[in-house]
């Protein structure tokens, strides 16, 4: 307890200091509308989270904080938009090993009721979301427990297998088994070695990823972990680490080495909510780096690194659905089922898809499963916030998607003083690019958000819905010409980057 108190005080003083800079800056600009945060340097996760205190409320010109509260709410919502708006070549076929920490550090109560129960709850949610986003991918779950790494579930594409196994950690199916309570220290080396062995046979067209959730601030390894890291690099593993409480030098090294020097895969969760967000952020398929960049980064062994994006043509079966009058056995589980699918190559009956045919090992899939991944390849670009000035110019009165009314622009012209207009001018083009690059999402003062291609205005709820669930822009698709143009545009972008 004493420890965490000390930490808090330290952070708070840091916070004061930054706050000082902010208020100084705004004073010189005059008392117009104030964007709450402008940070000179990129912040680490734990710093920014603590700063969302009361001090970020700013009084509006008329002395109310109503507008400010609403803006903060919207800003918080928009932050959650996944930052996958730029078209990149992505690894759609993923092989992921999820490593959970079950060491005694997970008994810590900084998450409710404790880290262990929180993580069991979130990973089940995570598995569902993962297969929702990556229907043709495979996953395996492991746990670091008392110095060892245990295999919780085998590599498979069926979410219920994993969820059952994760639940089984706390509530074992076999009543004689003891529930796995957190114990001992974690071993990153053992975890990496087991993950490497699991992913060793996966085909080269898919990704090989390891996602480690680490609660402890140590790793108790039986040997030289640097040798293990080296062999992970050789086997093209990509390791992401989600830490808790603090950053570790060794994790930074693991992530950096296995991701061609990019350390952004190492993140630290400050609280429950951020842990969940960080976890869910990894459900987006990773960007595939071009092979050139891979060999360029110096410290890699150039000898054994195979081509990263060894694209290949996969043979897949597209079965037809059958409905039998009498139940028959399925080949995959041996259950009696009425409906099912027949493998187009060996005519074996399979009860659920996607699956690998048990008879001939053909990947059997529905074309709709492939279509589920298309939105990663042709993502919807993020929308930009609309200033009062522009909102007035366009005169939009309601959201194009849901027809809910926007707030009316402020009647008095005092708002549109020189400062604001100048701000607008600079805002428009330069900021447009920059904002997208950084991926920083501000709230809109006018509660309007504009699609970059069709220029329609939307409300915050539609913004979130369209980017998180729908992946379409209702405005673009409602005009015949622009929709075709957008798809083409995205297509060329993919080709250029990929």
């Amino acid at each position: 307890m004493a420890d965490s108190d000390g930490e808090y005080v330290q952070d708070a003083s840091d916070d004061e200091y930054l706050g000082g800079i902010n208020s100084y800056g705004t004073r010189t600009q005059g008392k117009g509308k104030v964007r709450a945060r402008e940070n000179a340097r990129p912040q680490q996760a734990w710093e920014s989270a603590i700063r969302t205190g009361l001090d970020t409320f700013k009084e509006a010109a008329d002395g109310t904080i109503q507008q400010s509260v609403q803006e903060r709410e919207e800003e918080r919502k928009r932050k959650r938009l996944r930052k996958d708006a730029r078209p990149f070549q992505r690894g759609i076929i993923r092989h992921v090993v999820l490593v959970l920490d079950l060491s005694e550090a997970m008994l810590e109560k900084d998450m409710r009721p404790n880290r262990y129960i929180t993580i069991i709850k979130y990973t089940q949610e995570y598995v569902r979301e993962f297969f929702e986003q990556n229907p043709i991918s495979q996953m395996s779950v492991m746990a670091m427990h008392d110095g060892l790494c245990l295999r919780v579930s085998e590599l498979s594409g069926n979410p219920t297998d994993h969820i059952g196994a994760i639940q089984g950690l706390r509530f074992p199916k076999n009543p004689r088994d003891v529930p796995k309570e957190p114990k001992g220290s974690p071993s990153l080396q053992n975890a990496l070695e087991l993950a490497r062995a699991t992913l060793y046979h996966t085909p080269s067209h898919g990704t090989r990823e390891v996602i480690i959730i680490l609660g402890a601030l140590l790793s108790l390894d039986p040997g030289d972990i640097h040798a293990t890291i080296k062999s992970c690099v050789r086997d093209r593993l990509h390791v992401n680490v989600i830490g808790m409480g603090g950053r570790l030098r060794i994790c930074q090294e693991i992530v950096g080495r296995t991701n061609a020097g990019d350390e952004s895969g190492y993140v630290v969760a400050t609280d429950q909510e951020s842990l969940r967000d960080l976890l869910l952020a990894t459900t987006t398929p990773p960007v595939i780096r071009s092979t050139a960049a891979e060999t360029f980064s110096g410290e890699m062994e150039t000898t054994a690194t195979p081509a990263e994006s060894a694209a290949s043509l996969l043979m897949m079966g597209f079965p037809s659905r059958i409905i039998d009058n009498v139940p028959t056995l399925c080949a995959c589980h041996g259950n009696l089922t009425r409906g099912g699918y027949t493998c187009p190559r060996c005519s074996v009956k399979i009860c659920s898809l996607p699956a690998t045919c048990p008879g001939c090992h053909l990947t059997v899939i529905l074309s709709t499963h492939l279509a589920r991944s298309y939105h990663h390849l042709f993502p919807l670009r993020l929308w930009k916030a609309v200033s009062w000035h522009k909102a007035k110019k366009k005169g939009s009165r309601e959201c194009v998607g849901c027809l809910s009314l926007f707030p009316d622009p402020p009647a008095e012209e005092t708002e549109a003083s020189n400062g604001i207009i100048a701000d607008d001018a600079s805002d428009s083009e330069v900021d447009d690019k920059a904002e997208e690059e950084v991926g920083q999402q501000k709230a809109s003062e006018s509660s309007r958000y504009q699609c970059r291609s069709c220029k329609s205005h939307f409300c915050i709820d539609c913004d979130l819905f369209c980017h998180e669930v729908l992946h379409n822009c209702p405005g673009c698709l409602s005009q015949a010409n622009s929709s075709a143009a957008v798809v083409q545009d995205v297509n060329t972008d993919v080709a250029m980057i990929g």
Partner: protein
Amino acid sequence: MNAIDATDRHIKSTDGPPPSLLAIILDTNPHAWAHLSSILPLSKAVASLLVFINAHLASGNANEVAVIASHSQRTHWLYPTPTLPTPHSTSTSNGHDANGTVPENANKYRPFAVIETAILSNLTTLLNSTTASSLSATSTTQISGALSTALSYISKSHIRHSPVDPTINDHSTITTPDTDGILGQQRVSLTSRILILSVSGDLANQYIPVMNAIFAAQRQRIPIDILKLAGDTVLLQQACDATGGIYMAPESPQGLLQYLMMGFLPDATARRALVLPSAGSVDFRAACFCHRKVVDIGYVCSVCLSIFCIPSLPDSKCLTCDSHLSLSTTLTVTPALIPRKKKKRKRGPGESATPAGSSTPAPGSGTPTHS
């Protein structure tokens, strides 16, 4: 069963079944309606639709309706009437004309009259604004735009109806699993569905956006019903199948009203107690991107997931994304043989006694074997 849910307190005032939102997408593709005109003119179809809407509104106090036209070039709101943008804030009382001039008729229930006038006047505006040049440009319909708009509208209505903190709502829309329906049912106080009155055929050019919309509907548990008066498209059949909607392709479109009232009036709550018209068999086979040929076994680009019917592409480059594709891994290796060898080698000393047993875990362990 809703009693433990905090959202319920708000709803309790409207005794009875939960309010139901019906979003209707009327395909107004002029080409298709021209074909149909001898059997079922658009005017008659709209008249039937209005009766159906009234029936829907009458079957529940809090029921709502939204109508969107999916025209050849754009989508258009028929009800509720959108407010047009007024550039440079000139006048504020604009765009409500359609609702403002409801003729007073003592013999008509006023809400019915309001909707009828709005739909008819908006439809007239839409048809009047259709020019000959725009007609010749395309013969398809903007069904993807209409679906996206309808889904956004429904999603906002859900937020409006549940007094829960919208962030909680958002979280659960992301995370609600496909598999268990109970959780989603309890939270959502508004049941909604989409009905598409479709007359157009080929929609292949909108494949990706329509698919995105289908998955969104599936996640939100919004059934998409299809009444297909003309044309034929696999895409909409798949939409029905994926979202648990009703698909009907009547042979005689003259009986439109009958089909609507009998097949599509019951909402999700009532449907649980009914035997529904079944979609029959749905065609799930994929069409190749190169010749639009339906294939059983296809070759899929691992980068962009395009489907091809032949393994030998020109220059062994993907036709969609241009990446260089190696065929070696899938074609030169016979998939069934390699894993067997590994299994035997690994398990040889330990459990060689049961060769049959060694093949059973194979499907479970999945891919490590099928390299």
